[in-house]
C-alpha cells in the first residue's frame, strides 16, 4: 500500500513537471521561432495523453492544471480554459476507463479537436469579425495543427510508459 502511494505520487509529480516543461517549450518555441509564423500547441496533446491513462478525477485535476497554464500563457483571466479542460479531463477519464480502451487514434482525434476549439475561440474573440476570422482560420489553422501533430504520437507513448512504469489506478484499490 505504501509502495503504491509512493508510485502514485511519483507519477503525478512526473505529469506535473511534464506539463510545466511542455508549457515552457511551447512558449519558447513560439517566441524564438517567430519568423516561421508558427504556434505549436504542445500542452493539449500532452494533457490528452495523461487523461487517457488516468481515472476521471486525475484527468480533471490535470485538466485544471493545463487550463490554468493556457489561461496564464495567453494573459487572459485565470479560469476560462481551466473550467473547460477540467470538464474535458473528467470525460476523457470516463471515456478511456468505461467506454473504449485508450489508443493512438483517440489521442490524435481528441487532440486535434481540442486544438481546433482553443484556436478558433481565441482567434474569434480577438477579431470579433466573422469574415476576417474565416480568412485567418483558413490561412493559419492547418499550419498550426500540422506543426502541433508532431507531438501527438510521442505524447501518447510517453504517458503510456509513465502510466505502466508507475502503476495504474487499479493498484490503489488493492
Amino acid at each position: 500500500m505504501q509502495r503504491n502511494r509512493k508510485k502514485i505520487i511519483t507519477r503525478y509529480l512526473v505529469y506535473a513537471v511534464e506539463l510545466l516543461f511542455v508549457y515552457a517549450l511551447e512558449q519558447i518555441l513560439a517566441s524564438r521561432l517567430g519568423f516561421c509564423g508558427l504556434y505549436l500547441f504542445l500542452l493539449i496533446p500532452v494533457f490528452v495523453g495523461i487523461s487517457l491513462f488516468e481515472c476521471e478525477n486525475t484527468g480533471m485535476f490535470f485538466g485544471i492544471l493545463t487550463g490554468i497554464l493556457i489561461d496564464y500563457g495567453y494573459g487572459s483571466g485565470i479560469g476560462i480554459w481551466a473550467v473547460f479542460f477540467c470538464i474535458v479531463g473528467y470525460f476523457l477519464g470516463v471515456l478511456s476507463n468505461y467506454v473504449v480502451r485508450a489508443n493512438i487514434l483517440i489521442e490524435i482525434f481528441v487532440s486535434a479537436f481540442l486544438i481546433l476549439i482553443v484556436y478558433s475561440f481565441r482567434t474569434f474573440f480577438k477579431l470579433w469579425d466573422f469574415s476576417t476570422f474565416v480568412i485567418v482560420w483558413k490561412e493559419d489553422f492547418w499550419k498550426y495543427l500540422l506543426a502541433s501533430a508532431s507531438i501527438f504520437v510521442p505524447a501518447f507513448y510517453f504517458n503510456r510508459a509513465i502510466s505502466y512504469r508507475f502503476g495504474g489506478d487499479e493498484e490503489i484499490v488493492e
Partner: protein
Amino acid sequence: MRSFFKSAPFKLILTVVTVLLLVLLYTKIFPDNNFIENGISYITVQFQRGMAWLFDKSGDYMHVFREKEELQSENEILQREISRLRDKTIDYYNLKEENKSLKNLYGMKEKDDSLKFVRSDVIGKSDTLDSSNFIIDRGSDDGISVGDAVITDKGFVGSVCKVSACSSYVRTILSADCKVGVIGVESREEGVLMGNLNFSKDGLTRMAFISAQSPIKNGEIIVTGGIGGMYPKNLKIGKVTKTSYDEHDSFYYAVVEPFQNIKELKSVYVINDFENKGKIEILNSSDTEK
C-alpha cells in the same frame, strides 16, 4: 440521468467549476499583481528561464553544422562589409567633429540621465494571433508597471500591458491594440502608431491619423512624441516606407518599418522611470494656433 445529477462525481465537478469561476471573477476584478497569477508566475518563470537558456545555448552551437560553402560566401560578404565600414569610419570621425560643434552651438543635451532601465529576457509568446506580443521574465518585483516602455538598443518596441510578480506581458508596436503618440522628426507631423494584422505579418506597423496633405516623406524617421507622459520623448521607432489611405477606417497613414526586427527579440530593456513620467505636456497657445 436524474441519478447522475445527484451523484458524487457531479457534485465534485460542480464544486470545482464553481471555485474556478470564482477564481476567474477574482482575476478579472484584479487583473494585475493578484496573488494567484503571482504564484503561477513564480513557478512557470523558472521553467521558462531554463528553457530560454537551453534554447539560446543550443542555438550557439548550431552554426557548427552549417555548410562550408555557406560560411565561405558569408565570409566574402563580411570582408566587403569591413572594407565599406572602414571608409565609413573616416566619414564618421569627420561628422563627429562637426556634430560636436553643432551640439555645443545649440546646447543640446547629449544624454537623458533620468532614464532607468531593467534588462529582461523574452521567455514566451502571449498570443497565437498577434504573433509579435511576448512575455518577459521581469515583473512588479523588479519595479515594472503597466504602461512602461520597452526598448532595445535599436529603438522602441512596445509597452508593458500586464504585470505579474516576476513576469510581464508586452504589447509590441506591431499589435493592433497598440496606440502610441508619435512624430516625424523632419516634418514634425504627429500621428498615432497602431498596428494592423496584415502589416504585422511582414514585421511592419503604421502611423495613423496623419493629415491628407502630410509633408511626411519616405525614409523619414519616426520617434515617440512623449506628449502623454507615458513614454520618454524621441525614442526612435522606425522609418516611413510609404503613405496611403485606409478606406475602411477613413484615415491617412504612413507604413513604418521598425528599426528593430520585433519577431526575433531575445532580450529587451524596460524603462521603468524617466523625467516627466506621468506628466502630460500641454501645448502652448502658439502651438495650438498652428
